């Protein structure tokens, strides 16, 4: 049961990373086509700046957060890590997961309220003379932070239950990037 839930979460976060990867490709194509079309045909792709900054950037930067969190890739300063051994290590890790959980829950809640406000205002920006709606992009943030809090909660649970070294947990934390490449 628990193992199935962990596997499901692992796959879910992997999908988030792939969506982020698609965002990277989309951004690359959009900007490249814009430059080529502007130079060759004097016709830039409309609203490139707005779509890149308001959609692709938000998607790439936040959506895969849960994936990063699952793989323990959030950057930490490990200057004193030698001090944390045995039970102290467990207490410290529980504290770290708890704070991460708190931060992500705060962020999920606050960015959700911001997204609702933008939705109600029907936020858009003008790109030359085209109106580009921007409110949908705001909803990516609460989604990303909610999923990241879910992962933090799981990590906190595994830590408190003393299970983070078990094979199913190790599998959950895997950092494989899609097979060996030499």
């Amino acid at each position: 049961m628990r193992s199935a839930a962990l596997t499901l979460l692992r796959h879910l976060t992997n999908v988030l990373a792939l969506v982020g990867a698609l965002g990277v490709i989309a951004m690359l194509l959009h900007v490249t086509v814009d430059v080529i079309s502007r130079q060759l045909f004097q016709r830039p792709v409309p609203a490139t700046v707005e779509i890149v900054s308001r959609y692709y950037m938000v998607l790439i930067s936040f959506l895969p957060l849960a994936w990063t969190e699952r793989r323990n890739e959030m950057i930490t300063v490990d200057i004193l890590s030698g001090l944390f051994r045995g039970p102290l290590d467990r207490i410290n890790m529980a504290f770290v997961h708890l704070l991460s959980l708190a931060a992500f829950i705060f962020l999920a809640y606050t960015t959700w309220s911001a997204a609702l406000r933008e939705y109600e205002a029907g936020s858009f920006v003008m790109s030359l003379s085209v109106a580009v709606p921007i409110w949908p992009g705001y909803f990516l943030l609460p989604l990303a932070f909610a999923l990241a809090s879910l992962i933090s909660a799981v990590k906190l649970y595994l830590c408190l239950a003393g299970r983070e070294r078990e094979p199913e947990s190790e599998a959950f934390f895997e950092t494989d990037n899609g097979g060996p490449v030499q």
Partner: protein
Amino acid sequence: EELRLAPGAPPSHPAHTPLYVTLAEELPKETDGTLTGNILGPEVANVGNMKGALQSGVVQVGNLLPLYFPGDLPNSALMGDLAFLGRDPQVMGAAMTEYVVTCEDCQEEFKKLGAVFAGAGSSDVYVLLTTKPVRTPDDIKGMRLRSGGSPFARWAEYIGASPVNVPVNDTFESMSQGVIDGTMGSAADLTSYRLIDLAKYIIDLPLGTYHATVNFAVNTDAWKAMSPEQRRGFVRAANKANIAFTQTWGYERSNVAREEAEKAGLEVIKPDQALFDVTESFVEDDLKAVVGIAESQYGITDAEAKIARFRELVEKWTKIIDEVGHEPEAIAAATQKEVWDKVDYESYGM
């Protein structure tokens, strides 16, 4: 009570000095020392994030540009589409101020956003700053020009240039790379964005003003916490600051920039009559287009009447400023009397 004031711009920008500096100086004088201000830098709030900063109360008085938030402030943003009506900055600042204060839909928008409008200002009349000479309509065909807003983009398209959407902070780089051949903007951009290092020509073709401004948006909670007397005092201080701002941004800055540009060897070109004519005909054709834009993109009803009302105010203030002259004190007295003294400080913005 010390208010947190946010010009959203560095000290070198007129939105900081004189706009917010004047407010901070006048505020205690006009409120018997009961209100003071502390100016926050752009690292706390900039024009891009001003709405959130105001709504959360991080900032209590902020410089809010409606064109950054047209979804929230469509009725105020719409006046930005009438840029080409602008021929005199003080006229446009006063007309915009009176328009928003007396426009019910605008006031409704501000209420929903959680802010109170306390005055607008205006830029100088925009010109073309280019790396290539422009004299005839043919010269401008196919030129890539940075547009600072949709009316300028429409003008560029009308005249056969290709408007390019470049974020204001990228203007310098885009011009130095040759990605754009010029920009439609204030002559003051020559110094404030250092375009003086790149541009070779100032094309003296009047392109209208940037007047869709809310120099002072007051957080509604902060406004409600003031007594009616304090609100009156706040607005008196704000009014002086608004006039001083337009005086600087609308005239002095661009004059200084032009002098520096001439020293730096830029050439001022007075283009052929043909370019003036085609711009004239654009203005009339475009007014019809604006009605469509207002209804389809901003979701505004009754746009024709609103545009007519704004034109009326532009004419009214053209007459007033013709009479009182361009002394800032005289204009401040006129806007105080014509607009702000008619406001009921028990109910305004509540």
